[in-house]
């Protein structure tokens, strides 16, 4: 059975699983909608009537916290950086007790006593301040809108990865490409567009129709799929690799791959090879040795071509791994009739640039024309273009480039003035940390392609302990779930359940994907595909392709359960916090009902439309929003719950100070690091720590500097009448 056939079979299973999944989700939404008819609409639609039991509460909390990243980004990181990811995720040992236990019981009590349904409701009622409530609405809508678009994009990308080998999907996407050709708004990636529409319509429909209970019940189903998938994968992976110890010892021999551009020679110009795909493997052999490469970006080959230039390749550098690949012990399929004849110099960098010609010019690949220093280059630096280039006078074109030598500036000028380079973007062929160093995958800080200090420095490790456990407590999407559980006993049992759940998910995930590093080499070319790849590889090994489909559904389930929660948060902020509480307090239940459906539908559709052309920096947006929300909300919420002296002035100042401090780290990064999404790290700590420290400090001192809160509010939320 060939590797591509295995993938196709697994992807068909993924398609069937996806269809079954979608049907189940709609069934759940229909059941939830029946509940809406028998209860108070607002409380039921946005908060599930505060009646969540242990399993529903535990699994909706766990599934919402585990976004799509847990099943795509996290496995990809384990694969790319090795064992150090156990430390990166280590604070999940206390995430359940922190995120649910620190404020859960008290928040639930305060929300009940005020009748609050949303987080802005709680903050507004706690201080009886409409302005404070509106400020929180603005912040939530601001952050969540960004996040919603980013999560829609994440969902579509995950679906695209999962379905990329399904024939029906590919042909349908081609048809969509024809229908939308010429309409720039729809972009050039029809597969992404199709996935976005499927994903978006499904999520918007079931969330709109079913409300909070639909979201919770689908979360439960998704949570079960996730843990079952991981627990099935673990023994399969350990068995396939020959035990965890063997995986660790093999990893200790590994060195990071190199990535760059190569030249591929076909046996003759009548070769039937029309494309070099991402699964393809190639060799470069001489008398003494054989070098092994994987295609890192698909390349179309024109008919009649014998020599293919500018092929992006990944070179495997570990001798024992090369031996296993050549011996056929891994799922690596070499392309017949093609070989690599040239690859980037290990000390060079590769990337892209825009060139503009003043006069018409034609250059052969690797032309030495550019091997000249300009006034902004040292004599040892030069650029090459690893492909044929033909430009008319005044024409600009994006090209692949290789730079050898030290880069001092991002503008290069040909001394003859014929060609100008701009928009140069390059990466090192070798990893910035860990290249040529065996053992880097089993020790800290882990290899990094871009960061010379490695993947996880000490300060970053500390930052992540804050990030997951403490900032997780400050997420409004988590807080709203803490308002929905039934009683204290439910909370206690749910914390225990989630603690076990995370132990069963995250520790095995590290084991599984360390094994995957050994079992499936060369996935650095497309690390986000490692989850479906390993699921299909392992389950086909035991003849259970359907199981692969189920496992592949886990990341899709994870991102779905995150998106639906965010969607409901934004619509609740608009309907409850803006319309009902500020515009029309006497609105009838029928009006609120129609408005809630409409708002969820409109917000979801708007996010989906924006996601057709989404901003880049997907993961960066998610990190910015998550840490920004914590910097704004955690300190005020902790103080208003636990400090009778807290007042609206102090909490407002603390909230704004947290926002500003966190935001300023990103703005400073835009100047210092040339990108908003590469924030400035004060003392090498993540902006979340700066934001939290400033927010807590400012809330405390501003509260002390302003008048004490009204007695009736203190009495209502902190005292009870003595029973005689």
């Amino acid at each position, binding site marked *: 059975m060939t590797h591509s056939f295995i993938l196709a079979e697994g992807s068909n299973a993924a398609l069937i699983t996806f269809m079954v999944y979608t049907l189940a989700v709609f069934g759940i939404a229909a059941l939830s909608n029946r509940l809406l008819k028998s209860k108070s609409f607002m409380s039921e639609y946005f908060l599930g009537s505060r009646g969540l039991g242990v399993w529903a509460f535990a699994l909706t909390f766990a599934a919402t916290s585990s976004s799509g990243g847990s099943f795509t980004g996290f496995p990809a990181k384990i694969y790319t950086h090795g064992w150090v990811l156990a430390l990166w995720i280590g604070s999940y040992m206390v995430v359940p007790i922190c995120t649910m*236990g620190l404020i859960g019981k008290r928040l639930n009590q305060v929300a009940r006593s005020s009748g609050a349904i949303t987080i802005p409701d709680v903050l507004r009622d706690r201080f009886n301040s409409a302005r404070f409530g509106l400020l929180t609405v603005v912040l939530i809508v601001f952050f969540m809108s960004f996040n919603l678009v980013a999560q829609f994009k994440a969902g579509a990308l995950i679906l695209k990865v999962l379905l990329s080998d399904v024939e029906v999907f590919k042909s349908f996407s081609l048809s969509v490409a024809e229908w939308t050709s010429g309409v720039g708004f729809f972009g050039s990636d029809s597969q992404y567009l199709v996935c976005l529409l499927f994903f978006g319509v499904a999520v918007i429909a079931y969330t709109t129709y079913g409300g909070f209970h639909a979201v919770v019940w689908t979360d439960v189903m998704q949570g079960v799929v996730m843990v079952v998938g991981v627990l099935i994968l673990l023994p399969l992976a350990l068995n396939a690799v020959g035990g965890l110890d063997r995986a660790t010892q093999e990893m200790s021999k590994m060195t990071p791959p190199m990535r760059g551009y190569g030249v591929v020679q076909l046996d003759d110009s009548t070769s039937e090879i029309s494309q070099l795909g991402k699964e393809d493997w190639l060799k470069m052999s001489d008398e003494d040795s054989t070098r092994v490469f994987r295609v890192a970006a698909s390349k179309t080959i024109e008919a009649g071509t014998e020599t293919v230039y500018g092929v992006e390749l990944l070179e495997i550098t570990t001798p024992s791994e090369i031996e296993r690949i050549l011996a056929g012990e891994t799922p690596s399929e070499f392309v017949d009739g093609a070989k690599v004849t040239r690859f980037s110099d290990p000390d060079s960098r590769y990337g892209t640039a825009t060139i503009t010609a003043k006069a018409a010019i034609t250059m052969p690949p690797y032309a030495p024309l550019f091997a000249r220093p300009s006034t902004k280059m040292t004599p040892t630096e030069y650029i090459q273009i690893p492909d044929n280039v033909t430009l008319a006078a005044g024409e600009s074109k994006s090209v692949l480039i290789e730079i050898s030598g030290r880069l001092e500036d991002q503008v290069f000028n040909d001394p003859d003035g014929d060609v100008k380079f701009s928009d140069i973007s390059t990466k090192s062929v070798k990893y910035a940390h860990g290249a040529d160093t065996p053992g880097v995958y089993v020790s800290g800080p882990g290899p990094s392609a871009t960061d010379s200090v490695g993947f996880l420095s000490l300060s970053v490790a500390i930052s992540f302990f804050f990030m997951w456990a403490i900032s997780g407590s400050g997420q409004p999407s988590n807080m709203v779930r803490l308002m929905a559980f039934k009683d204290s006993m439910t909370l206690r049992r749910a914390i225990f359940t989630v603690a076990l759940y995370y132990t069963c998910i995250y520790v095995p995930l590290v084991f599984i994907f360390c094994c995957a590093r050994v079992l499936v080499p060369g996935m650095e070319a497309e690390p986000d595909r490692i989850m479906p790849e390993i699921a299909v590889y392992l389950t086909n090994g035991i003849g259970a392709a359907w199981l692969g489909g189920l496992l592949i559904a886990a990341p899709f389930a994870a991102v779905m359960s995150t998106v639906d929660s965010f969607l409901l948060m934004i619509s609740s902020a608009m309907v409850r916090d803006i319309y009902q509480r500020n515009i029309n307090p006497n609105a009838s239940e029928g009006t609120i009902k129609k408005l809630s459906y409409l708002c969820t539908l409109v917000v979801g559709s708007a996010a989906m439309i924006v996601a057709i052309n989404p901003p880049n920096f997907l993961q960066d947006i998610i990190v910015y929003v998550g840490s920004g929300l914590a910097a704004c909300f955690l300190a005020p919420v902790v103080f208003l719950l636990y400090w009778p002296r807290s007042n609206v002035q102090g909490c407002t100042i603390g909230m704004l100070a947290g926002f500003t401090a966190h935001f300023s780290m990103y703005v400073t990064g835009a100047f210092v690091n040339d990108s908003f999404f590469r924030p400035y790290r004060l003392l090498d700590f993540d902006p979340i720590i700066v934001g939290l420290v400033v927010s807590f400090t400012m809330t405390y001192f501003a509260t002390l500097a302003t008048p004490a809160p009204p007695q009736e509010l203190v009495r209502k939320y902190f005292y009870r009448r003595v029973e005689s």
Partner: protein
Amino acid sequence: MESSSNSSPDEFELDPVFLNSRREAWVIFGVWFLCMIWAVPVSYMMGYGHEIVPGNVPTVFGMPTWIFWGIVCPWLVADVVTTWLCFRFIKNDDLGVAPEELAEAAGSADQSATGDAAAKGGV
């Protein structure tokens, strides 16, 4: 009352749910801090900057030693502590009743009364 009060101090007392929650929050925060000062320094001292002999890495249950002592061991301890907190330490407080829950309870009581009356032919 903890903050200044105009009413009679005998009429009100600090809410035990607030007191219990605050005490539990401090303990939970302490657990987080202890886990951090176990996991990060142990991992750093045992797992960073050491010479690795390829193919001969010291392991415990198949994982590198520093992962076991720095992450997996405290993780298991954290699970035990969490279990203890959940079933022994965190109090089973009454969190009250929300206004809409009261209204629904009243509504269902009315319906029940109406139903009973209808059954008896009274309405």
